[in-house]
């Protein structure tokens, strides 16, 4: 088993929490893992990414080679496109559909969607809306992670365990809400996956 994934977003969106949950799940599953993060300068509203590698064999490089990622998981649609060179030809792009507008020259949303449509396998969801429907915009990232669960190569139950571990300190209610969010994301991905 091997899953290479790139987490992408804008500084401050919280891709590292998603990475931490997957990391916990991988640890419980007994997998090898490497995760390269970007800290510092780029966190001020700039583009951020993290390379996450999971495998049942030891992993050499912290960075994913070009054309080898099974998955790009993005909290922002244009950011999902930035890392396409790392995606396998038949890899999945799972992304939040709503743009994060903090630059003056952001492309027209239709252009972004068109680029996404050119790819063979995508899921684009408005995870903020799904999160709000659950009663808290704050769980949008967990919805996003839920949407990626079919493509991670780790059992769904393990990801649930990861969510429990990461949010344990914040109380029972928060854990439950995040488990719901995870489920909502997974369901929505099944309904909206292309193909």
């Amino acid at each position: 088993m091997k899953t290479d994934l790139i987490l992408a977003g804008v500084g401050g969106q919280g891709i590292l929490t998603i990475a931490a949950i997957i990391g916990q799940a991988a640890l419980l599953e007994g997998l090898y893992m490497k995760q390269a993060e970007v800290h510092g300068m780029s966190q001020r509203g700039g583009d951020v990414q993290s390379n996450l590698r999971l495998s049942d064999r030891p992993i050499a490089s912290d960075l994913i080679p070009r054309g080898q990622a099974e998955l790009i998981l993005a909290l922002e649609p244009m950011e999902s496109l930035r890392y396409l060179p790392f995606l396998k030809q038949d890899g999945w792009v799972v992304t939040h559909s709503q743009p994060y507008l903090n630059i003056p020259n952001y492309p027209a949303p239709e252009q972004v969607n068109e680029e996404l449509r050119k790819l063979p396998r995508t899921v684009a969801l408005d995870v903020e809306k799904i999160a709000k429907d659950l009663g808290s915009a704050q769980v949008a990232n967990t919805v996003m992670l839920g949407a990626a669960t079919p493509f991670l190569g780790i059992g769904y139950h393990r990801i649930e365990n990861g969510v429990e571990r990461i949010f344990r300190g914040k109380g029972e209610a928060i854990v439950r809400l995040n488990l719901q969010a995870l489920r909502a994301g997974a369901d929505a991905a099944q309904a909206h996956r292309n193909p």
Partner: protein
Amino acid sequence: MGKHLFLGDEAIAQAAIDAGLSGVYAYPGTPSTEITEYIQNATEAKEKNIRSKWCVNEKTAMEAALGMCYAGKRALCCMKHVGLNVAADCFMNAAMSGVHGGLIIVTADDPSMHSSQNEQDNRVLGNFAMIPMLEPSCQQEAYDMVYNGFELSEKTGYPLLLRITTRMAHSRATVETRRKKEQNRLSFPQDGKQRFILLPGIARQRFKALLKAQETFTRESEVSPYNVYFDAPDKRLGIITTGIAFNYLSENYPEGFEHPVLKIGQYPLPRKPIERLANACGEILVLEEGFPVVEEQLKGFLGRGLILHGRLDQTLPRDGELTPDSVGRALGKSIVAYYDVPEIVKQRPPALCAGCGHRDVYEALNEVLKSYPDTAKVFSDIGCYTLGALPPFHSIESCIDMGASITMAKGAAEAGVFPAICVIGDSTFTHSGMTGLLDCVNEQTPVTIIISDNETTAMTGGQNSAGTGRLESICRGLGVAEEHVRVMIPLKKNYEEMKGILREEIAYKGVSVVIPRRACIQTLKRKHPVRK
């Protein structure tokens, strides 16, 4: 003992704690910051009374670390690569005195400049100081090197330089920790005065001792578990890797190496395995993260010419960090099909946060400087406020090294620039700005120094800032006239007042310090999270 998912930085921190650390000394700087933060937050470190507060700069940090080692205890001193420039005076001379308790100096280099002004490779400085160096290839090795490193430092009597790069510092992997060691007791070096008083007569002796110690260091490298020779059948090429370059090589040979490989993790370069590789192979490819340090050193290393490939002959790019792909290309591996980045994807540079006080400072300053089109020059410095270089502000002319804003403004004023303005952050001011301010005061140079005070070290994640609450008294103490130390609150509603103060102080033909003060909104958020 147990398995943990650690950043490289965290592995180093935990290893130091497990190895009986008594103090960590550091100034924040990406990608080294998390080492010290980990120790600051570790309950275990509190129980053991491990000293861990932030220092004013890297030089004060290293000197204090050396003092702790003088007293027999184990100390860790951490910085980003450019921090070692600041601490270089102590660094070079600590190699002369040597240490008593173990000292590990960590330099976190940043090839590709993810968050830095340059990509200097501090192995050059390690060689310059002629002390042993360690360069881990993975988080476990980083842990082991620190865990065992204090003994190596104590055995040889010299500080060690541990060199990591961004991808090691900020990448997570599983690490197995070991049995905890006791902290050292207070003790003094027997021959202390003959080592630590570097008067010329003693220094000459110490330099001879350092030169002599090179043999010991090389012998240590030759038996080091971090320098490993892997034999393989195809001897047309031999490969030398240092640090994490080994991983990129391995990534390209999932089924095992085709060519003999020498993996280096400890310096000075081990002579015997290099001789073995050179005798066995026709040509040598050097894979190293950073400058072509080993590649250059190998040229005359064996007293004969070797056919070398690497960054110098363009087999690999001369700049930037290595990647599995650039290493693959150097090995002549075929290219996997990949997508291009669509043209519509635009750059998303970092920016000052909405609501940040630095924004208000630049807006008011830009307004005021409209009265001096073309003549006003604003020298700035390193921190979040450097983002004032970007649109919509375009306010600043320079960002060179910490503290340079004040002294560059001084030099420019002396060259005839008016108004000569400086914008510096509070942490940068105490790091390296205070001495330059004293220079200005001593000559009454007409400069307007704006210390944009957000009461934190924001750029690196909101660490405490050494002068918080005392900036005015520091400036007055250095001799700035009381009436020319002006404080204001950078908010839109205060623009008229802010502009008025700036105009008055620019008009003053002497040293003035303007302190716009408003807490960093990110730091505030972390301290008082909004509950929803």
